[in-house]
Structures are given as structure tokens and as C-alpha cells.
């Protein structure tokens, strides 16, 4: 799950990084936003969205995206499906 601040809400971490990059010679960088990545194994992918809504994200101030990946243990190549939601 990729969780990021909603557009339009001040992201002080993003602002700090955006200001730091030009000092290292990376010019022209804009719209830096910093979120977080949650990785987990779950028996039922239908649980993921409610998990985000209830705990992992605060839908008031954050958007989230869900990406399903194949189980690395079994090597099953269950087609990676991408879902996305923004409240």
C-alpha cells in the first residue's frame, strides 16, 4: 500500500526535500511529496482497502493505492493487479 498526503495539504517533509535538492545540483525539481509504503502478506486481498480506511491511512488527509504482487514464497505468478483509491 502506497500512502501519500492528499493534494493541497502542506507536506513539510516534501518542502524540505524540495529545497535541499537544488543545493546538491538537482535543479528543476518540483512537487515533492513524501508518503509511506506498507508491505504485508495477507490471505484475502479484499481486506486491504478496509485496512487502509480503518488504520493504515487517515482518509481525511491521505490517499492510498493498493498493489497486489505474486507470492515470492511459492513463485505463483498470480497476475499483479493494481488497485487505487482516493477517498
Amino acid at each position, binding site marked *: 500500500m502506497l500512502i501519500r498526503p492528499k493534494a493541497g*495539504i*502542506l507536506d*513539510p517533509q516534501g518542502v524540505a526535500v524540495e529545497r535541499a535538492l537544488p543545493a546538491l545540483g538537482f535543479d528543476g525539481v518540483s512537487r515533492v511529496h513524501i508518503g509511506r509504503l506498507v508491505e504485508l502478506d495477507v490471505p484475502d486481498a479484499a481486506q486491504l482497502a478496509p485496512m487502509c480506511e480503518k*488504520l493504515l491511512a487517515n482518509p*481525511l*488527509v491521505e490517499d492510498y493505492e493498493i498493489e497486489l504482487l505474486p507470492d515470492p514464497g511459492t513463485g505463483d505468478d498470480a497476475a499483479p493487479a493494481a488497485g487505487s483509491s482516493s477517498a
Partner: protein
Amino acid sequence: MKFGVLQFPGSCDDADALTAARLVGDAELLWHRDRDLRGCEAIIVPGGFSYGDYLRAGAIARFSPVMESVIEFAHEGGLVLGICNGFQVLCEAQLLPGALLGNANRRFTFRQVRLELVNADTPFTRACAGRDHLSIPAKHASGRYYADERTLERLEAEGQVVLRYARGENFNGSLRDIAGVCSERGNVFGLMPHPEHAVDELLGGSSDGLCILRSMREALEGALA
């Protein structure tokens, strides 16, 4: 009357809240795993870093057993005061509108702040009536009050904005300088500054926090009378 002060792993202002509450009434600690509110007539959700503040401040504490009882207590009209981390917990529990985000200055900041008393007609502020301002310390890293524009308009119109940072005092970037809000029904109140740290002029030079606790006591006694 008896205050109940919640205690989570990571709470750090529970002892001060308990001491402050005892200047006004009886008080006892309520452990986070305990669903029994032990007959407490008002609840204080104290400051600190409940459950390490992992994920988001207050996000995990909100699902603790004691909070299930507090949510029920609040829905029945019980008085609940959330201070700092307690305010974050009450927002996460949706007992209060909005959210508290990382300070705009990106720093944990500790300073005495001057607060404008916006609404002196709540169960948490009636004993402060006659004062325009309160001087109370604030110390936090995530105190930037946020709610969408519609919610902010509603809060202002309904008198739910109880405290504002006075001019020049809004170090965390809170929208509309909001320092404390109450629920629509008025029985739940959250604020980022710490009234429990301003109860004796010997410590910090202000006892302005006491009127908030006194208000709660008077509200309960008025309700019983």
C-alpha cells in the same frame, strides 16, 4: 467528582494530568487494556506518545480496549478532554473533527503559548469566563490542525473553535490558528497545549490551565444539581 486519566504505553503526561485533576477533584489512572472506567465522571486522554506514535500519532491507541469504553461514554454525553496526544487520539477516534499533522516548522517545539479564548460557553471553559487569553505551554511535533474548508466553516459557525493561538503564536501551522476544538454536542474537547502543565505559578509562571479542569467539575456539579 472523579476524573479518570487514561494510561497507554508511551503516555508521559498522565502523572501531571492526574496531579492537576487532583487539585480539582478525585482522580485515578485507567490502564489501556481495562474496559472499566471505574465510575469516573470525566475522562482525560493525556499527552505522550501512545503505542510509540507508530504509523500516525494516536492511530493505534484509538483501538485500545479502554478507548472503546471512552467512545461509548462520549456518545452517552460524558465529558472527555484530550490533551496533545490525547487530542490526536480523539481525532483518530472521530470523536472530534479534523486531524493533526506534522508541524509546519518540521520540529518538535516546546514553548509557552498565548491562547485566545474563543468560546467561554462550553463545559470546558465556563470557569475561564472573563478571560480573553490563557497562557499555557505547548510541546509537540504533530500539532498542525487540519480540516477541510467546509468543516472549518461549520466549526466556526457552531462555536466549536474553543481556543486559537494568539497572533504570532501559531508555530505549528494550524489552519485558522486553531488550538482547540469541541464536538458538535460540546462534551468532547481536544487541545494541543497542556493545561495540566499550567496549574501552579511556581512551575512555568501560569496557573491558567486550572480553569479548564474547574469548568469540567462545575459542569458535572451543575448537571447533578
